[in-house]
């Protein structure tokens, strides 16, 4: 019985580690970002110019980075919704068994392709296409990043939406079919509305992935920190800013602390998206 108690405490300790890590993430982001509050002052974050390296005046306005992330995320979401939701609907409602056996692992493979490889492909193949298609000076734009990010988020959207669709009670479907509705009408009028909370959660989790993705945006969105909402402009996201600049800053400098602030904002956004999505999913599993 003593051995049992010891093992139980060890397991408890392992479980507690997850709580500890989350706490440490917040603590260490806060710790490194803290100095910025007094010098140069937290209000400096609320401006529209990010010029962290300058001989005259360093500026740490987060707005262009936030709009950069926002723009890319919204575009990617608009692109991933039709593909993700249609894919999930098709796989769970219309595909034959053989098709499903092939489609599901294939889409899982997509989820496994490293983001740096997707970015590499975007750089070499997609960005020249975007450039010539829209007659731009450069193919490294928000829309290029959004297309690739949508692709990366699609597996998440598909697998979670599919779970939601699968868990619609078959009695709903049967009732609709028995009333003479076609399979397609049943899908769109009964199944999709019933699965909607789960599908929305899936989209939110997909968005979470997009906001947090680093390598693709770093490689293909042009890395220009300017305030814009045009899909064809170069932008710089929060993630790319951290990745690109953290390697070159002096530890403890204002720039260093500002990058941790970027991390905090990023963390809060993804945390919010996740918690909301989980609430939706939970509501839905209660049924």
């Amino acid at each position, binding site marked *: 019985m003593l051995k049992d108690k010891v093992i139980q405490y060890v*397991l408890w300790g392992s479980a507690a580690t997850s709580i500890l890590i989350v706490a440490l993430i917040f603590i260490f982001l806060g710790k490194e970002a803290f100095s910025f509050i007094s010098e140069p002052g937290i209000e400096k974050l609320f401006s529209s110019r990010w010029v962290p390296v300058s001989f005259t005046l360093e500026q740490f306005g987060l707005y262009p980075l936030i709009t950069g992330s926002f723009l890319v995320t919204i575009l990617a979401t608009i692109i991933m919704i039709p593909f993700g939701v249609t894919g999930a609907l098709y796989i769970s409602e219309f595909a034959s068994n053989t098709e499903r056996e092939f*489609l599901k692992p294939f889409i899982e493979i997509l989820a496994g392709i490293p983001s740096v490889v997707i970015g590499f492909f975007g750089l070499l193949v997609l960005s020249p296409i975007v450039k010539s298609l829209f007659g731009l000076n450069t193919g490294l734009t928000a829309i290029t990043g959004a297309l690739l990010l949508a692709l990366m988020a699609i597996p998440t959207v598909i697998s979670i939406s599919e779970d939601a669709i699968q868990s619609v009670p078959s009695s709903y479907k049967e009732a609709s079919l028995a009333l003479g509705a076609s399979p397609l009408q049943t899908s769109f009028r009964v199944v999709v509305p019933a699965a909607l909370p789960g599908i929305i959660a899936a989209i939110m989790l997909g968005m979470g992935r997009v906001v947090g993705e680093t390598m693709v945006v770093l490689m293909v969105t042009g890395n220009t920190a300017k305030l814009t909402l045009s899909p064809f402009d170069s932008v710089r996201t929060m993630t790319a800013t951290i990745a690109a600049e953290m390697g070159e800053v002096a530890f403890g400098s204002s720039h260093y602390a500002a990058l941790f602030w970027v991390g905090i904002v990023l963390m809060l956004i993804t945390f919010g998206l996740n918690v909301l999505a989980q609430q939706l999913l939970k509501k839905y599993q209660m049924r």
Partner: protein
Amino acid sequence: MPKKEKVITWVLRLITYSIVVIIGTILFNIVKNGLPVLSWEFLSQPPRRSGAEGGILPAIIGTIYLVSGAIIVAIPLGMATSIYLTEYASQDRFNRYVRLSIITLAGVPSIVFGLFGLGLFVIFFGFGASILSGSLTLAFMILPTIIVSSEEALRAVPLSLREGSLALGATRWQTIYKNVLPYALPGMFTGSILGVGRAAGETAPILLTAAAFFLPKLPTSIFDQVMALPYHLYILATQHPEVHKVLPKQYGTALVLVLLVLTFNLTAIFLRGHFRKKYKW
């Protein structure tokens, strides 16, 4: 089926398969351009002239070290957590906090893990940019994947096996060890492999905690910096002074990385199907 219905079904099919075509295009592009570069020399030699010549051996080794380190930390920790959550903790407050933490961790952007690893391991613990810092950072990143899939495997073992064992006077741990884990472990490992595949392909977390731009020597201790495949690809593709000259090396690196990650994923997908068939309760 009316004509309109048929058309709409075809549109759905078309959209779904367009995803497949895009994935296929990416893989084909990488394989077609990467395959000619693959050679024994490319895999077994260190890079020369900052990657313009030679191979990618240190990057392969570096990735293997980082991933192994992550496995050593994350798999025991993740499995132990999942055992606690499914077998011991009931619906108490601690359990709810652990779950909230896991959900939170699963959503933390990889670059934020990088920042965290930088702040905690590199600076606070003074491990510097090293295999140790990078492995620990990756370990915490893949922890949620391992916990969630291990839990799923544990829950698939029927309650009646636990009751049967407890009723014979087995303690809780004896029951878990002898009558739950043997049937859950294959599934637990399968899920873990997916997490490992993810760790091998990630760049952002190691960017700030472990990766070196150009380091032709192999590491000798866990406090050494290392090259890593994803980072090497990133550098060759965007930071190299002669980007176009090293294009074949880029494709070769991309192919090796994709092969490595896909091996993990396909193994996991295959094994999962296998075990699902084996244990149908």
